[in-house]
């Protein structure tokens, strides 16, 4: 053991004998986990913890304006950095407000530790003031949760929570701490390790299966890579890129997988699925080997399951065995961590001499599909097309922004028109589809990366679901750029009503919209409006020029534009509605 290590050991053992309160333990354990930022909102049950947070400055607490936003911000902090996001809320309404955020993270497998206050142990079950059964409510939307009844178990529980959140298939873990537990004292010793006999995620893939997979890929005439959020979560974009380039095969990403492979690369076909590109969906329907990596065959991706990839042998790598053969029966299942698996696949591919195959005919076919130019739109000089706004954002930020989004048409346009060349730049709620995610997510990302340009692409519907966070942005001087594609409609709902409900627009119209420019100003920010196509570029330029200010850009866009292509729910992927 080296000398500096020994000193560290000594300082640690001297602290081991200290008696700390539960609240001190919480803060100390967070520091020992390397946590730098906690998003939260105080209340009675967590006041001891807040008191301790205030006495130190290793951890910054970010005070949001609604607990849902605290969790979304912690979530995006994690999505942009790969670190575990941390949120802290009080009991009762604090916890219930956090639930949407927790469920959002759960659906997208984002590692979070959420700490909730609880009424004192003796009052649990008594319908006490601000009591809810938080572990009961969050059981189905957390990877795991704990109620800590004894201060002696606190440190170990926190350690375990962090371990569970990030290992295997990541997810949010909740720790419910009764108020009296935060006041009681015990010895603090942060455990080095976690031993759980019942939880041992597989890391290394089965080498025999990987060989088999590579042989299939090598023999394929029409191979296709279909990769998802697992590539981002496992930080294996480089490894993936290496393998795909070697195979010279086309690749498509799910909504969650964007940035896992450079969008500007020739081999990239765009997103697949309901609003995927023509070429990506056609490639799925015609490929003979489909290589699914860290993607979970969601129904927005597969369309009608019985018609999905009808000619393909399917290889599926996922860290969660339950993702494999859940919706689509696969031929070569591999359980393992993608980073480790892709590294091994690259080595094996080298050893087996895979690569440089002749896929000319397949590529010729794909180029033909590409000619269809499925994302085409026409920008006239009268009405702003929403796609044009995103395209301009992309150009003027040189593709380097972190883009968060809300849910709806604007989300799909952001996914289609902002080319992500790197992972962790595209942050959106895919699995739960939570309107209200975008702005707090932008806060989390901006806190994590103060130097990066963070753009929140939103709609006038979604932004109003967490609009109060403009106040948080003011307090912490977060220079987020909000790009509101204001179509005056719950556009995605309106689109479905146009296509599938005979144009009966029940409650999809957003009446009584606020003046977003004035609203931004009221919160102390800058508001800009673009009413015609010629305004778009100057508005974006001005917003980007104001580097240290939050700017709300209100783009009055074509009110009835639709997202194309579209695969109607339940149809085969090849049955696309095209422009």
């Amino acid at each position, binding site marked *: 053991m080296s000398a500096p290590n020994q000193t560290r050991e000594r300082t640690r053992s001297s602290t081991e004998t200290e008696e700390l309160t539960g609240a001190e333990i919480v803060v100390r354990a967070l520091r020992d986990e390397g946590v730098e930022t906690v998003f939260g909102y105080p209340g009675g049950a967590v006041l001891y913890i807040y008191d301790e947070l205030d006495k130190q400055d290793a951890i910054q607490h970010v005070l949001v304006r609604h607990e849902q936003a605290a969790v979304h911000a912690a979530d995006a902090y994690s999505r942009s950095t790969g670190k575990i996001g941390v949120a802290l809320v009080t009991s009762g309404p604090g916890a219930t407000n956090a639930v949407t955020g927790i469920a959002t993270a759960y659906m997208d497998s984002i590692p979070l530790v959420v700490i909730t206050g609880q009424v004192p142990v003796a009052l649990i079950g008594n319908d006490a003031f601000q009591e809810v059964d938080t*572990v009961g409510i969050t*059981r*189905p939307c957390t990877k795991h949760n704990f109620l800590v009844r004894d201060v002696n178990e606190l440190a170990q529980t926190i350690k375990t929570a962090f371990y569970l959140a990030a290992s295997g298939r990541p997810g949010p873990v909740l720790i419910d701490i009764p108020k009296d537990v935060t006041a009681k004292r015990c010895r603090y010793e942060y455990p080095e390790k976690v031993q759980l006999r019942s939880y041992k995620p597989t890391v290394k893939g089965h080498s025999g299966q990987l060989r088999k997979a590579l042989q299939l890929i090598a023999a394929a005439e029409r191979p296709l890579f279909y990769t998802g959020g697992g590539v981002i979560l496992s930080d294996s974009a480089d490894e993936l890129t290496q393998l795909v380039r070697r195979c010279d095969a086309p690749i498509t990403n799910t909504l969650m997988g964007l940035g896992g492979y450079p969008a500007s690369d020739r081999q990239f076909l765009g997103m697949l699925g309901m609003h995927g590109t023509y070429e990506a969906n056609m490639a799925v329907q015609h490929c003979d080997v489909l290589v699914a990596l860290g993607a979970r065959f969601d129904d927005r991706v597969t369309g009608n399951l019985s018609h999905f990839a009808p000619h393909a042998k399917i290889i599926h790598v996922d860290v969660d*065995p339950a993702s494999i*053969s859940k919706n689509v*029966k696969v031929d070569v299942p591999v359980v393992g961590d993608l980073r480790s698996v892709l590294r091994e696949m690259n080595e094996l591919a080298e050893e087996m001499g895979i690569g440089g195959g002749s896929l000319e005919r397949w590529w010729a076919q794909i180029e033909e599909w590409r000619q269809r130019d499925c994302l085409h739109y026409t920008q006239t000089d009268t009405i702003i097309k929403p796609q044009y706004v995103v395209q301009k954002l992309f150009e003027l930020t040189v593709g380097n922004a972190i883009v968060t989004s809300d849910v709806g048409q604007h989300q799909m346009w952001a996914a289609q028109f902002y080319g992500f060349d790197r992972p962790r730049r595209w942050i959106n709620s895919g699995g739960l589809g939570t309107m209200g995610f975008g702005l707090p997510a932008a806060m989390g990302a901006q806190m994590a990366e103060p130097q990066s340009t963070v753009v929140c692409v939103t709609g006038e519907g979604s932004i109003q679901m967490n609009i109060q966070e403009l106040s948080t942005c003011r307090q912490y001087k977060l220079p987020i750029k909000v790009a509101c594609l204001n179509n005056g409609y719950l556009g995605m709902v309106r689109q479905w009503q146009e296509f599938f409900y005979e144009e009966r627009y029940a409650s999809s119209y957003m009446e009584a919209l606020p003046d977003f420019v004035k609203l931004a100003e009221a919160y102390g920010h800058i508001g800009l409006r673009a009413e015609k196509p010629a305004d778009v570029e100057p508005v974006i330029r001005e917003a980007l020029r104001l580097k240290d200010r939050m700017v709300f850009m209100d783009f009055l866009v074509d009110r009835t534009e639709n997202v194309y292509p579209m695969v109607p729910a339940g149809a085969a992927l090849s049955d696309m509605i095209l422009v």
Partner: protein
Amino acid sequence: MHRHIISVLLENEAGALSRVAGLFSARGYNIEAMTVAPTHEASVSRMTILTQGSEEIMEQVLKQLNKLVEVIRVNDLSEGPHIERELMLIKVHAVGSDREEVKRLADIFRGRIIDVTDRSYTIELTGTGEKLDAFLHALDPGMVIEVVRSGASAISRGAKSI
């Protein structure tokens, strides 16, 4: 659709049971019966779940159970030779000539009468679910006052543990 008997070893902790029960209801899996109690190791509980489902659903049931952090091991006992037992306590009207009749029937099924009043018997019976059903069918439905069944417990045959 086949009947499956699933054995689950799990941490004997508060909340573990509701996690399993919640999983079944949230994912719409069928539960016919579920029993749970600590094993010879106090920190481990064993649960037996009687369920039905297609092969694909059963694969998901096993995987999803395995995914629960507190679950140590999961096994589909119906895939191999196993022994299944259920306990039933049944209280029946027993007056006049019925008293002899009920006693005879209980004997045939190797049941034991464990409580007696001048108007009733309480019978204890163990066996497979089928056997318990058969006993119930053999009784005149009008005689039955009350039935309580434990749900199946099961163990594999042979010397090995799951």
